[in-house]
C-alpha cells in the first residue's frame, strides 16, 4: 500500500528556489504548499519541516493547513488518479452509481489507493463540465456522459 515519496536533492533545490520567490509576497505559505504539492506529489512531514525552517512558521501550524485543504495530501497518490465528479448536476444524472462501480471494481473506497499503487480513487467537486454530466476524470482527462459500462471498460484498459 505504501508508495514511496520520491524526495531527491534536485527536487528540494527546486522547492528552495520557489520559496525564495514566494517569500517576497505577503502570505507566502499557501503558494509554497502549492509548489511542494506539485514538485513532490504530496507534502510529507519531512517537507513540512523544511518549509517550517525557511518560512519561520511552526510545523504544527503548517500541518494544520496541509490537512485542512483537500488539494494537499501527506501521502503519495497512485499512478492513475480516477476522480468521479460529485457535483450536483453529475449526481442527479447518476455519478453515485459510477463511483460505486469504480469502488467495487478496484476494491477501494474514496481517498484510497490500490495495493499495487496503480489507482487512487477520488470524489471530486464540481469541475464545471456540467453539460457532459455525469463526468469522471482519469489523470485529468475528462470522460463525459459516463455510464456504468463505460467506466468498467476504461478501467480495464488502464489495468493492462
Amino acid at each position, binding site marked *: 500500500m505504501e508508495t514511496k515519496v520520491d524526495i531527491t536533492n534536485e527536487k528540494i533545490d527546486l522547492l528552495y528556489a520557489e520559496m525564495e520567490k514566494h517569500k517576497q*509576497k*505577503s*502570505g*507566502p*505559505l*499557501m*503558494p509554497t*504548499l*502549492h509548489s511542494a504539492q506539485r514538485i513532490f506529489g504530496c507534502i510529507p512531514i519531512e517537507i513540512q519541516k523544511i518549509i517550517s525552517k525557511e518560512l519561520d*512558521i511552526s510545523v504544527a501550524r503548517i500541518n*494544520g*493547513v496541509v490537512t*485542512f*485543504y*483537500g*488539494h*494537499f495530501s501527506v501521502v503519495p497518490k497512485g499512478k492513475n488518479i480516477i476522480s468521479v465528479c*460529485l*457535483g*450536483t*448536476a453529475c*449526481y*442527479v*444524472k*447518476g455519478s*453515485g*452509481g459510477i463511483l460505486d*462501480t469504480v469502488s*467495487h471494481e478496484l476494491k477501494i473506497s474514496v481517498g484510497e489507493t490500490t495495493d499495487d499503487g496503480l489507482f487512487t480513487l477520488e470524489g*471530486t*467537486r*464540481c*469541475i*464545471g*463540465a*456540467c*453539460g*457532459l*454530466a455525469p463526468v469522471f476524470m482519469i489523470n485529468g482527462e*475528462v470522460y*463525459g456522459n459516463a*455510464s*456504468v*459500462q463505460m467506466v468498467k471498460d476504461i478501467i480495464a484498459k488502464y489495468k493492462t
Partner: protein
Amino acid sequence: MLDRMHILICGGPDCKDKSIPIRDAFKANIKKHHLENEVSAVITGCFGLCALGPHILIYPGEILYSGVSEENIQEIFEEHVMKNNPVERLLYRGKFDRMKLKNRSELTFFAQQERIVLRNCGTINPLDINEYIGRDGYMALAKVLTEMTPEEVISEVKKSGLRGRGGGGFPTGLKWEFAKKSISDEKYVVCNADEGDPGAFMDRAVLEGDPHTVLEAMAICGYAIGSHTGYIYIRAEYPVAVERLEIAIGQAKKLGLLGKNIFESGFDFDIEIRLGAGAFVCGEETALMASIEGERGMPRKKPPFPAVKGLFGKPTNVNNVETFANIPPIFLKGADWFKSIGTEKSSGTKVFALGGKIANTGLLEVPMGTTLREVIFDIGGGIPNNKKFKAVQTGGPSGGCITEEMLDTPIDFDNLIALGSMMGSGGMIVMDEDTCMVDVARFYLEFTVDESCGKCTPCREGTKRMLDILNRICQGRGNLDDLNILERLARIIKNSSLCGLGQTAPNPVLSTLKYFKDEYIAHVTDKVCPAGVCSKLTKYVILDNCIGCTKCAKNCPVGAITGNVKEKHKINSKLCTKCGVCKSICPVEAISTKPEKWRAIYAKAN
C-alpha cells in the same frame, strides 16, 4: 484589418478538448487555400449551449454549427467558407427552431437572453487583449480615471442598484462606500473566484472567456476605494482560467492598463493571483482572506467587517467574479440603463448554469424578473425523454428546491428567499421523476459535512447527525420520529452557526421536507423509494415494453436475467446485485426500479 470571414470556435469547459483540433483543421485549410488575409479562426470562451458542443460560429451571418467534429471541418470549409453555402445538415437545431436557417441571436436559446456579464464570452479571443479593447475594453477604466472622482464612481455603482452576485445579494455600491470610508495606509480589492457551488460554472466561463473584464473592474474598484493592490482568489480546479488570467494580467501590464500611473492619472494598481486549495468554505469572504494569509480557511467573526479590518488586517473589499463583470458596462452605458433592466429591487441580469435533467444544459443570462418557467421550459428546452418535471434546485448546498406550482415566480433575490431557497451563485439543477428528493437532501448534507470547517459545534456535529439520520432513512431504517428530529436539528444549526455555510446547510433538508414530505414518508413507513434511487429500497423489474433483445441478459454480471429472444425477460431478484448495468444499456427503457404504485402516479402525471 477586417477579415472577410471570422470563424469562432467554442473553447468553454465542455468543448475545449475538441476545439483545438477543430481550429487546427481550419487553420490548415486556410493555409492551403492561401486565405490568411481573409479568414480567421479563433477559439473563444463558452457559448453557453454546453449540451450540444463543440460549436462553431461563422461571421458574417452569425451562422451556428453545433456538435461538429474534426471530420466535418473539411466539408464546412469547402462549402461554407469557400462557396458561402452553409452546410444545413450540421447547423444547430433547437427544439423550437427546427430546420430553419437563422442567425444566432434569433435562436430561442439566445433570443430571450440579455447578455451583459457574458457579453464577450464566445465572441472574443480571450488570449488577445486587443479583441477586448476592440469591444470597448478598458474604456470604462479610462473614463473613471480621467473624468470621475472616487465619490462619483461609488455613487454611480450605488445608483445602478447592482447587488452582489455571489449569493448574498448585498448592494455593491454600499460595500465600496464602507471600504472607501475606512482610513488606512493600505487597502485591498479581492476578487472571489472560488466558485465552489456544485453545478455553478458561470465564473469559470467569464474568467476563461473574458478575463480582462474582471481586471478592469477590479482596477475601477481600487480607484474608488483607494486601493493599489488586488488579489484574485481562484480555485486550483480551474487551471485554464488561471492560465488565461496570468496571460491577461501580463498583457494589461505591458500596455500600461495595470501597473504604475494608469492612463497618466497617477493611479497605480496591480493584481496578483492566489490559488485556492479545495475548500468550499473559502468562498466565504472571511475564510477566503484567512486562506490568502496562509491560515486554515476558517471564517472569522463579523464585525469587524472586511471593509474595516480585512486581509492582513487592512480594509478590504471582496466581490465575486460576476459582480465585477457587471461594472464596466455600468460605466459605459450608465447606471440608469442598468437600473432599467431587471426588477425594482434586483436590477440587471443574472447568469444561470442550467444542469441536471434538462435539454439545453449550459449557461444563460436573463434579466432579473424572468420566471423560472421561462428559463427551464423556453430557454432550457424542458425535460428530455418525456419525463415529468419534479423540482429545480437553486442556490447549491445553501439553497432549496422549488416545485412546479411555484415556477411562475419571477426570479430575483428576495422572491427566491421567500420560497425557501436562494439565488446563490446561480446554479440551477433540474430534477425529474427519476430523482429521489431524500437522496438529494442526503447528497447536499454529505457535501456540507465534508466541507464544514469544524469551528462551530452545531455545524460540525449537527450536520453529521442529520446525515446519519438521512442515511438511515435511505437504507429503510428510518421512522416517522426521525423527520421531527431532522427539523429540530436543522433549526438549531441555522440559528447557532457563525458563517453562511452553517446557517444555510440545513436548507436542502428543510425545503425537501416541506415540499416532498410524501417521499420521506414513503421511505420511512412504506420502505420504498418512489424514484427508485435508494438501492436498499428498490427492486429491479422488467416492464411489458421489453422487446426481448437479450442485451441485458448478455451483460448481467451475475446471470440474474433470463428470457427468450423477442420475449419479455425476467430478473431473478435473489441473484440481482443492483449494479445497474442492465438499466444503463436497455434500448427501450424497459427496466425500472420504481415501485409499482409510484410508477402509476408518474404515468398519470405525464
